[in-house]
């Protein structure tokens, strides 16, 4: 994955909150994507228009004790959301 790229969230996806868990769903597909808190943070950072690199840096700053795993986790989450059609790469 190109870490300098920016991502676009699919606006047809909505959020349903269950305590500290999130369900991301597209009403047209009746398909849900389960997000834990970290995945939801990544989604929110994508919504705010940050690049993958910036998202990793922000999360590493917020969770320094998890620094070693964050990059891998962010990339896996973004790839999963892209596979589901919830995210796409922004055209530069």
């Amino acid at each position, binding site marked *: 994955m190109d870490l300098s790229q920016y991502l676009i969230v699919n606006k047809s996806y*909505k959020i349903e909150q269950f*305590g500290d868990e999130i369900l991301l769903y597209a009403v047209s597909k009746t398909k849900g994507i389960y997000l834990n808190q970290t995945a939801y943070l990544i989604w929110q950072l994508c919504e705010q228009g940050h690049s993958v690199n910036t998202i990793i840096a922000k999360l590493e700053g917020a969770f320094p004790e998890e620094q070693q795993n964050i990059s891998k986790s962010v990339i896996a989450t973004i790839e999963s959301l892209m596979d589901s059609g919830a995210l796409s790469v922004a055209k530069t």
Partner: protein
Amino acid sequence: MIVGFCNHAVEIFCDGKKAIKLLEFLCHDLPQESSPHITARFELSMEDRAGQYSFNKDGTSLFTGSNLYELAYTIINEILYYTIVDNSSGLALHSAAIVKEDVAILLPGKSGTGKSTLAAWLLAQGCNYLTDELVVLGGSDFCIIPFTRPLSIKSGALPALRQFVDYSLEDVISDKQGVMLPHRMLNPHFKPSMLTPKIILFPVYDAKSEASLQEVSAARGCAMLLESYVNARNISQHGIGLLADLARSTSIYKLQYGRFAALPPLLRERFPALFGDIRK
């Protein structure tokens, strides 16, 4: 004959006693409603001297042939489709439903997940039948309106079930693909009831796996329910908020199993008040 449920029905014109008998076999436990909305009309012909049956809609043939099982399967699926396709009475889910000790349990899943087979086994353990195929959950309390039909068991599941039910071919409709089995053969006590679901079990049949019963969070449960949800387009805001409320208000589990013998200890341990008396 007018058959359906949830205020929607189809009208089926029959050409004789055989056709009426078949519809009674399939639809005996569907509710009789006073003035349902008729969504489709069919013609069912079974009196042909050459033994050919036909089932038509508006002059278009949906079935022609001599296989009674395939005819019955076609009819019940058409009834189900036309009573649900524009129905906004509640959330329609592909789900079996049973009742134990006045507690309603949903078993949602797509075709092939084993919901009918698990429902059949649970009936043999004393649970009461509601449906093996579809429920509509109506109102803010998600009252279950079941599509009560004969159980439809695929042939692959029959050997395991035969120890729990003894039937002759005259009592069922069958062919090499499976059997349509009147639910009273598994449990003669049928009590139509409209209850709110308290437990949701997602059956996962896997012959090679260890049996397990895992609790599922409301968020994950809602994601799983979405896959069984069939009438979203008829409901305001697609009914996702309602589905989420259902997930929040029920206990949700994934029940994985490969053989029935593994189920009693799991169910007894998790639900002692309901399944404490289940057979070993």
